[in-house]
């Protein structure tokens, strides 16, 4: 999936995460993580984010994450939404999605 424009999903409410996805000039993923639980879950959040991007076949993007203690399922949902918005995808095949 190609990131064409800046898009975001999520909020800064407790237990939610706000994710901004931006187009990048460089290859690869640039990840900025800012989390309330970075000491305890920083590594796990990065893993989940990179895995989700791989599943969405995103190769080039800047991803900025402000996490307020969201569970993995919330992080995945917000990231999928942000990527789809950034790629301009308006229809989504829910059945295909794992």
């Amino acid at each position, binding site marked *: 999936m190609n990131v064409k424009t800046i898009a975001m999903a999520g909020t800064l409410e*407790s*237990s939610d995460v706000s994710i901004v996805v931006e187009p990048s000039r460089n290859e690869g993923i640039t990840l900025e993580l800012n989390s*309330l*639980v970075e*000491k*305890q*879950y*920083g*590594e*796990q959040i990065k893993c989940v984010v990179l895995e989700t991007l791989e599943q969405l076949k995103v190769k080039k993007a800047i991803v900025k994450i402000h996490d*307020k*203690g*969201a*569970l*993995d399922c919330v992080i995945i949902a917000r990231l999928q939404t942000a990527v789809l918005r950034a790629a301009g995808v308006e229809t989504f095949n829910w059945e295909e999605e794992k």
Partner: protein
Amino acid sequence: MAINKIGREIPDYIEGIGELKSYEGPFSVEPAKRRFGRKISTITPKQSKILEDIEQAIIETGLKDGMTISFHHHFREGDYIINMVVDTIAKLGIKNITLAPSSLNSVHAPIIEHIKNGVITKIETSGLRGSLADAISKGILEYPVKIRSHGGRARAIEAGDVKIDVAFLGVPACDEYGNANGHSGKSFCGSLGYAKVDAQYADKVVLITDNLVPYPNVPASIAQTDVDFVVKMDAIGDPKGIVSGATRYTKNPRELLIAKYAATVIKESGYLADGFSMQCGTGGASLAVARSIKQTMIEKDIKASFALGGITGQFVEMLEEGLINKLYDTQCFDLTAAKSIGTNPNHVEIDAGFYANPHNKGCAVNVLDIVILSALEVDTEFNVNVITGSDGVLRGASGGHCDTAAGSKLSIIVAPLIRGRIPTIVENVNTVITPGETIDVVVTDRGIAVNPLRTDLIEKLSKTNLPIFTIEELKEKAEKIAGKPKAIQYGEKIVALVEYRDGTIIDVIKEVK
């Protein structure tokens, strides 16, 4: 280095602090000392106790480098006294002072500067919050802070482990000969339970008031026979920070669920019988438990002999309705409680020693049936942390947690299984304040665990339809939802020693990287 009874490494000796004794169990220490006595001093007829200001008071008390000063925390986040006094001490060029208040709050952040400039070099307290707590967690103090429970502090003062040279005590109403209470004035706070201990054991006692009343100010929480000086000021605290308004009932469904489970545990435990006693925290779930118990008390015509604590408006209401016979109060938590203590003779002020000193001839927690407590973390040994956050940084208070857990017949922890993403039930708590062998039941929104030591409770509760699990099962439930948190990386420096109520060391807190 010694390993104490709960498996924590405790140094044998710390430079500047002395030898340390390891925790060996809740009632393992036999006191062998005589009670500490302050220096005798006298006030002669016609001698006035009134001084101009704090500066004159510091000079008159003879405060010098290396001495210990104490304060109470009845003014909570509204306190002006500690910052004013320490600022003045700094101005007078006195250094190397041990600050030994009953507790510290976020409002005491200016102390950071006085640590940097060498005025304050040691701290002993029940709690630490805000930026002062952050700075201490990062290792700003050369010597570790001593964390004591409310009962443990009273014990340490009465045993002479802490020798207070000068106590500076803010009092909301005071006459010019030093009879003081917290019943009236714009800074009224109700009970002065913590201050009463300092007034009796400090070598010099300075009362600071913004409300000078005609002699004699009775009933007095602090008596003229204990007071050297009285200073009148315009303001000793911010009323908004001293007492909060009426405590609101929670509508949070998770807290209500926890409360429902906890109330059922209490009803089924057998302790909810006529003449029982209880203490509750001020958290949403705790207050909701009390409300639910109240309903059962009315239905079954059960009356409580007394409620203890930290008193809230809710208990005052139950006192007035005849559901509770007496209130034992060391600290008023809200406006209703603070107003009641001066007017209702059944609302009785007690000092911290009467409340919870384990080394007197029977403190109030010894006769407590039920206590409901909160927790930041509970581990699979039932040990409880209420002082360090999940990031390892100081941000709480020992309070009466370990005192009431040890004294009561039924100690219940109420807490959500997960906060944000952070599990409450973990393999190892960051810091132990209350040892697991004094905790009976842990109630979360996702299930209840009973301490295996309490086979009697397990038998009673397994007959109910409560969701009972082992504590390990609760831990796994939490990790399944949130993931397993990575352990916090600490440095080598010890920034705080956690003293159990008997004076032994139950845990140490290291600096955060």
